[in-house]
């Protein structure tokens, strides 16, 4: 995998990073610092653990701790929680949000940004997150734009986008990825609980897929 000077990750909810945590761990292993901007605390989530270990009031603080633990497992040292309200990112002033992302890009000068692919990332918070990042990068002069690797998972997205052009083999970073998933215990217990078999998880988690965003 190409070595980058700095990777900026911009996602919407604590746990959005889990599916790409192998890639993040790989960058960190190569000595590349990773900054993770997480827009919300996921405080409107429905999953409260099983058995239930959170409520509407305690969920944001619990998810914050889960996120910190996930980042620790991956090796992310610069975690920035911007504290927008879960579900409400698309209702914020969109120009202001994009501007804030742009300021962060200017501060860090990353050679790679990872975010959601606008139009193909299902949840309105994901869509608004991806749009803001693309808008911020588009506002930079063409020659100084970092590469953007976007995640896409809406139904039929491959028919429109084609196959992902970046496929990272991350089997080597299984422990970091498992640690990231299991840190989010209010969110993943139901899904992962009966998949404690490492062999199966290794098989499911060995590849991470991205699309390089094409600016027009």
């Amino acid at each position, binding site marked *: 995998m190409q070595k980058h000077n700095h990777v900026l990750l911009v996602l919407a909810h604590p746990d959005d990073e889990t599916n790409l945590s192998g890639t993040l761990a790989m960058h960190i292993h190569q000595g590349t610092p990773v900054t993770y901007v997480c827009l919300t605390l996921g405080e409107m989530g429905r999953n409260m653990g099983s058995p239930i270990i959170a409520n509407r009031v305690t969920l944001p603080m619990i998810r914050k701790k889960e996120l910190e633990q996930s980042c620790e497992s991956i090796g992310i040292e610069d975690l920035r929680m911007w504290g927008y*309200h879960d*579900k*409400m990112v*698309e*209702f*914020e002033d969109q120009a202001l949000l994009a501007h804030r992302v742009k300021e962060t890009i200017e501060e860090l000068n990353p050679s790679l940004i990872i975010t959601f692919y606008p139009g193909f990332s299902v949840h*309105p918070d994901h869509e608004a997150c991806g749009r803001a990042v693309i808008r911020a990068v588009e506002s930079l002069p063409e020659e100084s734009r970092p590469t953007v690797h976007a995640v896409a998972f809406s139904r039929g997205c491959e028919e429109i986008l084609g196959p992902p052009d970046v496929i990272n083999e991350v089997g080597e970073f299984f422990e970091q990825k498992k640690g990231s998933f299991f840190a989010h215990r209010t969110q993943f217990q139901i899904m992962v609980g009966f998949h404690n078999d490492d062999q199966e998880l290794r098989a499911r988690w060995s590849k991470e897929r991205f699309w390089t965003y094409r600016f027009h």
Partner: protein
Amino acid sequence: MQLIDSEEVQKRLTKWQNEDLYMHQEMTTGAYASHPASTFVKNAKIRYSLGTIAGEGPYRVGLKMEDGWVYAQGLTHWDFTDNHQLILAGHDDKGRLVVCLMLSKEPF
């Protein structure tokens, strides 16, 4: 009630930014769902600084207030009554009300 015209709804929401309003908001699964649940708030006093309708139908609405938010998802129909009440509602494929958000300068 008519199908939502998001531009028209946006105009109404923008017009009432920074005004004192009454809000009625409800959501119901109906009494015969496997886990019947419903909730409503009638005539809560609110004031929002930013009001937005989003989506391509069914629609979402978010109202940003000084200390919080109002949110509704699944909206399909709207009306603006002779009494200046903005009515936004979401009906399922059988026409049943699932979700409703109403704003007015006078109590409902």
